């Protein structure tokens, strides 16, 4: 017989081992679905791997997809550290996309346009995140619910915009006018879609790590998240920390939208984000809320997404498998996290 026993310390290698175990468990569990869909498991995963990481072009495509999830993953990781339950990265991303699209469509020198797009997009995301944070701080409204519901509000506001004032009068499609060509983010590798925003995302991760681990704001975020009462007693303005965290988190999510507009789509349409905001939650959990872990976690999910499409074409397994893998990975990670608090002990050998 086995049972769970509380553990007092968590070995350091757990931080690395847990996500790997969770991912392994996910792939094993999902292989059942592949088999049911009538394809060879090894073959299907093989196609996924080669299509996402098999050659340099595939790798750049995966990185381009990973970039928005790095940003939303960081947004969620930072917020969850303070126990600000930001489930609204999706809406914040959309707000960032719309705002940067506005700015990008104004004629001005390219570098200035890009800078302004980033600033305005980040500000828009931050503003959206401010809503659930303020509701929580002032009126004790549950931030999970308010930030989640706000996603729909923003989504339908965006729809109203592209179906209404922004609608392409020429084609009649519900898409925004494109941004200026000069505002398109430069492509870094000829013949790929690898744009400047990807590099910015890769740099943002260590910056966030530094912020959390090495600054007084990061200290206050950590302490507030773990024990707000001790934080308050220790002279930390808990409400201000929550608001700062929300602004930071929303800005990061907003930048995810900026990258999609400036580097990938150059305009806004209804499906500009296939749920990158929600994937950010999976990414942050797999990363155990460590900003440095967000990068590999986002790349994993991106690889699954790009890989799943190729697998679908090659083997006929529906590409929805990528959603199943995401969901399963989140659940597997939550189960795995149990083992940071508990250990399994064999008992009853003597009974």
């Amino acid at each position, binding site marked *: *017989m086995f*049972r769970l*026993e*509380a553990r*007092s*310390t968590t070995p350091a290698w757990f931080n690395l081992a847990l996500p790997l175990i969770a991912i392994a468990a996910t792939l094993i569990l999902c292989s059942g679905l592949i088999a049911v869909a009538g394809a060879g498991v090894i073959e299907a995963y093989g196609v996924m791997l080669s299509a996402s990481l098999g050659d340099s072009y595939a790798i750049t495509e995966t990185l381009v997809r990973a970039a928005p999830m790095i940003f939303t993953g960081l947004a969620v990781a930072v917020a969850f550290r303070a126990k600000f339950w930001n489930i609204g990265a999706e809406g914040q991303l959309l707000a960032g996309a719309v705002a940067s699209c506005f700015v990008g469509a104004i004629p001005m020198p390219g570098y200035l346009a890009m800078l302004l797009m980033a600033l305005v997009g980040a500000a828009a995301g931050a503003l959206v995140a401010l809503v659930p944070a303020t509701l929580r701080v002032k009126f004790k409204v549950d931030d999970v619910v308010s930030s989640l519901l706000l996603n729909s509000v923003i989504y339908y506001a965006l729809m109203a915009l592209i179906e209404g004032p922004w609608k392409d009068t020429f084609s009649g499609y519900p898409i925004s006018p494109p941004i200026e060509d000069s505002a398109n983010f430069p492509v870094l590798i000829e013949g790929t879609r690898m744009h400047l925003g990807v590099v910015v995302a890769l740099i943002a991760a260590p910056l966030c790590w530094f912020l959390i681990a*090495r*600054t*007084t*704001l*990061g*200290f*206050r975020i*950590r*302490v507030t998240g*773990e*024990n707000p*009462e*001790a*934080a*308050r*007693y*220790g*002279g*930390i303005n808990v409400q201000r920390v929550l608001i700062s965290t929300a602004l930071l988190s929303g800005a990061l999510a907003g930048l995810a939208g900026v990258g999609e507009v400036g580097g990938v789509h150059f305009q806004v349409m209804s499906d500009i984000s296939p749920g990158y905001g929600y994937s950010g939650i999976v990414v942050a959990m797999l990363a155990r809320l460590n900003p440095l872990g967000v990068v590999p976690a986002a790349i994993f999910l991106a690889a699954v997404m790009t890989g799943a499409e190729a697998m679908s074409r090659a083997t006929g397994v529906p590409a929805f498998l990528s959603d199943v893998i995401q969901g399963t990975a989140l659940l597997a990670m939550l189960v795995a996290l149990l083992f940071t608090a508990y250990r399994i*002990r064999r*008992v*009853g050998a*003597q*009974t």
Partner: protein
Amino acid sequence: MSAPLIEMRGITKSFGAVKANEAVDLSVAPGEILGLLGENGAGKTTLMNVLFGAYAPDAGDILVEGRPVAIHNSADALAAGIGMVHQHFHLAPRLTVLENLLIGIPGKSGRIDRAGGLARLQEIGRQHGLSLEPNLPVSALSVGEQQRLEIIKALFRGAKLLILDEPTAVLAPSEVDGLFAALRSMAAQGLGIIFISHKLNEVRALTHRCVVLRHGKVAGRVDHPASTTSAEMAKLMCGHEIVPPTREASTPGAAVLTLDGISTSGHAGTPLRDVSLFVRAGEILGIAGVSGNGQRALADVISGMLPPKAGTMTIAGKTVAQFSPRELQALGLGRIPEDRMTTGLVTNLPLADSMVLPRIGTEAFSRKGLLNPAAIRAFAEEQIKAYDIRCPGPMVRAGALSGGNLQKALLARELAFDPKVLIVSQPTRGLDIGAARFIHEKFLAMRARGRGIIVIGEDLEELLMLCDRIAVMYEGRIAGTLSSADATVARLGLMMTGAGHTEEAA
């Protein structure tokens, strides 16, 4: 002699490198009250958790009425007739007293047997004088009543052995008498009881026999606690004598902290009503009173957690404007909270983080918003050494430390900055005598250096030993202040009930 009710043989339990219990033998006979003594971290709670099934022992056997049993969880323990009252209660706050008793007890044909439960509750109440209003929600009960409910819960489930882990640490002195009467009545009816406490006079008054643990091993057994002195027991626990510190005579200087006409509202506990008091340099002021008479509000006001509705407070001649922890700290106030685990420390983060928490924004630990990890670590290491805080190092989770060591850490984080005034609540609650003595010595040394200290406490013996003056709180007011020369347990006790008002003596 008949078979003991419970027998533990050769129990060994390690946590990593720490041997919390090593080859411990212990038995309890029916009708016996066994005291379990030992310094903080000696392994008392661990041993009882093994008995109650929370931990599996690495080695050793448990016998119930002579038969070996395997106890893997609390359900097994309850089935074997073992009940435990933890220091942190396990009650559902929104449910009523009766509902809490009935949780997990299958009634007839899957329905909850309220009437039967009510009858048992009343019967237990009659037998041991443990009555509780059955339809009150647990959230409305005082700590003492919640403890009573935990005891009733154990009896309700047919416990033959009752384990109480430091039950008196959360009780007011008057409540302790009621608890003891109930425990004696249960023992008289053949129940076995294991009683853990750091208060040796309680142990001597209540128990029939004692087992003393030191570093996880049995260091000694006391067969006649009533005729053994506290000093002898202390020596068994610590391995050396504990000498009480002496308070040298001194003349206090000017007032370092003054409250003038402070009133509060909007606080969970009793509000303050026109409270005025002062503490002078080189003086220790005690605040006595039955808990719930405004001590909580007083501590919260002075430590900056609760801005008052009316009145002023001055520290070292400066009037407090904001009542924020930061402002008060900057004025030279040191603060040690009553609840170490929830208010003092961040249990899930490294100990070092908790030790620098109140001053993280100061030059000592950060510059321009950037932390100085080396300075933080060095500070924590220095204090760990200076205060002999027993832990694996500054990066250990704060929550892994024992109560005494947590208190030392909180003391260190304040005293390192040599505050002009210190406010502290229940400074030695849950601490062994050695650790309590250490804390007392630190307070007296501060006093000798000309600092002012306010000690809010319920232990009158401790207040009488430490304080130059003792103010008594009653229903949110200061009922009177006695100088150490005039104060006796009897006089203070009378004032605590709201009788005999005494005018300020100074």
